[in-house]
């Protein structure tokens, strides 16, 4: 029977992996086209694919963590940004060199990552212990307040000798890939290690004329792959965690906490544990997102509540309650809603030959009266970042009104470690047959 179950869940994993691969393929095609249209060199296009992959992976991590809170246990946590901040700040403080300014403890990276996750879980415990008793809208207000208090604290001048204050924590240690590939991880032009030399040599693709991937990009690509591995590990961890009696209890808390209690489930304990676990994963997402690639500092203002809302929107796109949906939602949001629009705007501006677009909306409205639409278009393209937010808002309202189950439609992921539909009479019948 357990083999039945394994094949069943394995086949679902394969289908879901197919979905994710399909989404990534779509994104890569979109960005290949965008890069070609913009006349990027091949290395530039590959760099943009690397960036998209990175964003997809870090969004995936954060959305998965939120899905555990909201999708499974119904815990409406809108303080995600704060928990990510605690994770990345703690891990950097633990691992930054002792002599740096602000100084770190110079501990090895694994300890930094575990420490960051524990710190997030601890903040989750302190906030959750009292807050989880509250109604979900109160929990929402409280978590966003906690997240802002965290941001203000990291931002404050008072503690800037430890946190770097508003100007950020500037001594992020180099990524493990750099350590692996370079003899002096802090310098990109230092002598490569044996492994590094081999990889760098390979990435220059001597056989293919045009394709030559430099050291910096190579390191970024491998660091991104490392994050993708982390994402895969977290995904598998969560799939196992919720396809179980534990997942059933979480779902029951989301559906009707009183009913769950009346069946003997200590819902407060489940909620607190789950809240801490989710916070730890948010901390991990924060570390991967803000402490890993392309950043030399981490700034408190990266953790405004907006980023929490992005993660929420990604989850709603993918469908709350589904781990695969979480990853897909993260991918679609990061790729199509976050990264693509500014690129599209640039391409359109060039293609339409819009020059001297008006600075203000009134300057853009005027020419419309005389039948000229280009200035307005130019104005809108110039303000793509604002338009993007407006579109995100419209999409959010549309989804919650019309498709609350997510863009992908209703997915039922049964919370069980076995295939529940196997009837005992059937299995017994099978035994007597043999």
């Amino acid at each position, binding site marked *: 029977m357990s083999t039945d179950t394994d094949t069943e869940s394995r086949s679902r994993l394969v289908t879901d992996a197919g979905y994710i691969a399909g989404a990534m393929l779509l994104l890569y095609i979109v960005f290949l086209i965008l890069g070609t249209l913009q006349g990027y060199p091949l290395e530039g296009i590959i760099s943009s694919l690397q960036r998209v992959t990175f964003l997809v992976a870090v969004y995936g991590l954060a959305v998965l963590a939120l899905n555990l809170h909201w999708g499974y246990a119904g815990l*409406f946590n809108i303080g995600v940004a704060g928990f990510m901040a605690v994770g990345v700040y703690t891990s950097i403080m633990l691992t930054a060199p002792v002599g740096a300014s602000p100084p770190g403890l110079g501990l090895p990276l694994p300890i930094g990552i575990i420490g960051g996750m524990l710190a997030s879980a601890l903040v989750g415990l302190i906030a959750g212990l*009292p*807050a989880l*008793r*509250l*109604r*979900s*809208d*109160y929990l*929402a*207000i*409280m978590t*966003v*307040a*906690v997240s*802002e*208090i965290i941001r*203000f*604290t990291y*931002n*404050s*001048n*008072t503690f800037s000798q430890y946190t770097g204050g508003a100007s950020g924590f500037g001594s992020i240690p180099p990524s493990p890939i750099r350590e692996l590939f370079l003899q002096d991880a802090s310098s990109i032009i230092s002598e490569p290690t044996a492994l590094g030399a081999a990889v760098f040599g390979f990435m220059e693709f001597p056989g293919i004329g045009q394709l030559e991937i430099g050291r910096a990009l190579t390191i970024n690509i491998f660091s991104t792959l490392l994050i993708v591995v982390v994402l895969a590990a977290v995904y598998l961890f969560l799939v196992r965690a919720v396809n179980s009696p534990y997942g059933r209890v979480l779902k029951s808390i989301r559906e009707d906490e009183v009913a769950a209690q009346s069946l003997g489930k200590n819902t407060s304990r489940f909620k607190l544990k789950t809240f801490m676990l989710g916070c730890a994963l948010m901390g991990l997402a924060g570390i991967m997102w803000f402490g890993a690639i392309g950043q030399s500092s981490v700034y408190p203002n990266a953790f405004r509540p907006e980023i929490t*809302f992005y993660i*929420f929107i990604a989850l*709603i796109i993918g469908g709350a309650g589904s781990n695969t949906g979480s990853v897909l939602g993260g991918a679609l949001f990061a790729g199509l809603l976050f990264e693509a629009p500014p690129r599209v705007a640039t391409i359109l501006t060039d293609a339409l030959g819009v020059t001297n677009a008006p600075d*203000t*909306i*009134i*300057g853009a409205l005027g020419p419309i009266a005389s039948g000229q639409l280009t200035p307005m278009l130019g104005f809108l393209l110039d*303000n793509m970042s*604002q*338009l993007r*937010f*407006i579109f*995100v*808002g*419209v*999409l*959010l*309202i549309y989804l*919650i*009104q019309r498709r*609350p189950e997510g863009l992908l439609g209703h997915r039922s992921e049964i919370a069980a470690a076995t295939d529940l539909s196997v009837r005992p009479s059937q299995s017994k019948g099978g035994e007597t047959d043999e």
Partner: protein
Amino acid sequence: MGASATTARGRDLLARLGVAVTLGGAVLLLIDLLAQLARVDLWIIGGELAFSQLMNYLWTGLTLGLIIGLAGVGLSLTYSILNFANFAHGDYLTLGAFSGSSAAYVIAGLGTIDLASLILVDAPASDVGMSVTNTPVAVVMGLVVSIVVTIGLGLALDRVVYKPMRNFEGISLLIASIGVAFILRYLAALIFGTGRRGVTAPNEIPSIPVLGVNVNAHQVTILVVAVVAMLAIHLLLQRTKIGKAMRAMADNRDLARITGIPTERMITATWVLGSGLAGASGYMLMLSSGGTLGFNDGYLLLLLIFAAVILGGIGSVYGAIVGGLLIGITSRLALVWVPGEFGRPVAFGLMILFLLFRPSGLFGGVETA
């Protein structure tokens, strides 16, 4: 046997302990405040605090508190009557501030300055020279326009976004309101730009010293407008039929549950009152903050407004006003003890304490489940 009662009693005890610690802390701070004023040092308490500095904190806290309180009335009403936490409420303030400033600029600068830059609140503040003493009509009309525009906005948004969702649960509405917040905030950014600008005439607002505090004309305006608005709200809720119905509905969720879904008429009245007050608060926020205006202003105030509403008790109109004053004054008075950047966190902290130990607020009878 004992386990049973212990958990229940334990929780009770914890709650009481929390309240006791909070009150004790408050008393300690009060003693410290007096000691600081008297310039005495007693172990950890005491220090130096100029009386005028204290009065300045209280006065700026009061004006901020009035704004938060008025904005809170609207948030509290929509929260209890429509049953959701409106995360776009802060952005209603922003829209009120921009529309009001725009109208005031047009009136103050018409004929002398380019109309487009007036409409977009883009003209140099010193050229327009707007202040309640220089251009009283413009300032008052700005207030009126901020109220009218925000009411229109509130009703339009209700029609498009919230009306189709009448039977949705609170969290869905909350999420929709986050969408509305994004739209409003970045619409303001798109139209008016993302830069922060000065609106009122710099250095031209007369002020008089009162008890060591420079009280300026715009702060007095805020005080007057707020008091008039509060009286109007009071009369509306006590004397008119719809007002009484709203109060009953807002104060008592059980009643709301029994009588079922509020009538469309009452919902309209709620949005008119709530949005109008939000618009006015946004406009006054612009006046209070030294006449500066940015597209994030209302949103940045949102959590403080929530704090006020929770302190006062969700659904309580008078509670929201008192809560607003408490939050406003706390966030300023906190600066006696903490650096300036922690004024806001302290106010949030106060809200969190209330959520934990008295979630029904000072005036509320609303239960938590």
